[in-house]
């Protein structure tokens, strides 16, 4: 019970979900880069605002269910792009939007946008990981003082 409460404390579940989303999206982005010159390949992605909206809903619902405590039930809503995975985290169901210029090989690559997404997504992952690490250090410090 104590360990479960520690893992579900404060912003931790939302950060873990954000980290998992960034890792999944990173896979899609680098796959798009690898297939930049594959004929007929259509770029795949998931909506970041869509994820943020779902995360906001989950945080709001958790706040309502917590009733004053810090450990409410955190559950991400399922959308067309976010499906609950076997380990409880959302797994990504990417879309091929078909946007962008279609090249003569019927590939809709967009190098600049891909690199922008790669950098932005990397920063999102880093933010979630750094805050999670800080929380872990806080917990470690608290446990150390008690020992």
């Amino acid at each position, binding site marked *: 019970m104590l360990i479960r409460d520690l893992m579900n404390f404060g912003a931790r579940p939302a950060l873990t979900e954000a980290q998992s989303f960034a890792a999944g999206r*990173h896979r899609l982005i*680098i*796959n798009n880069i690898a297939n930049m010159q594959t004929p007929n390949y259509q770029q795949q992605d998931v909506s970041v605002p869509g994820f943020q909206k779902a995360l906001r809903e989950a945080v709001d619902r958790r706040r309502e269910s917590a009733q004053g405590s810090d450990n409410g039930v955190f559950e991400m809503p399922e959308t067309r792009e976010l499906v609950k995975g076997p380990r409880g985290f959302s797994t990504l169901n990417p879309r091929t939007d078909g946007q962008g210029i279609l090249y003569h090989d019927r590939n809709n690559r967009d190098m600049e946008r891909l690199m922008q997404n790669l950098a932005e997504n990397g920063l999102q992952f*880093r933010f979630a990981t750094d805050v999670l690490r800080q929380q872990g250090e806080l917990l470690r410090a608290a446990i150390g003082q008690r020992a």
Partner: protein
Amino acid sequence: MYGLLEISTSGMIAQRTRLSAISANVANRHSVNADGTPYRAKMVFFEPGDASATTAEGRKYGVHVARIEDDPTPFNLRWDPGDPRALKSGPNAGYVQESNVNPVLEQVNAIQATRAYEANAVAAEATKVMIQQALRLLG
């Protein structure tokens, strides 16, 4: 998460193969096959997925070289009736058939392949940084 690196690696391997084909095309621009026909330019075709990857993630994503085919465009013709290889009859009599390698096109393709290789290398570097950050969570 280690499977992520395989995706970028497959991209680099595919682009390197393409660059090898381009190099072979440029090097063999004036080559003649054993049967006397000029060298035909090679074209590399990619397909999504990488069966050679060691992880399920790597096999599902990534890219691989599906096939390498000869360029079917006609050979270039050079007017040289004195050459023993010159065509003896037909509308192109007096012309010598030469390889259909287009050096300008090969140059453009080489630049494209190099840039794509670099993009995959940058993606692999970003993946490495993410893995390092995740590992730092362990303390």
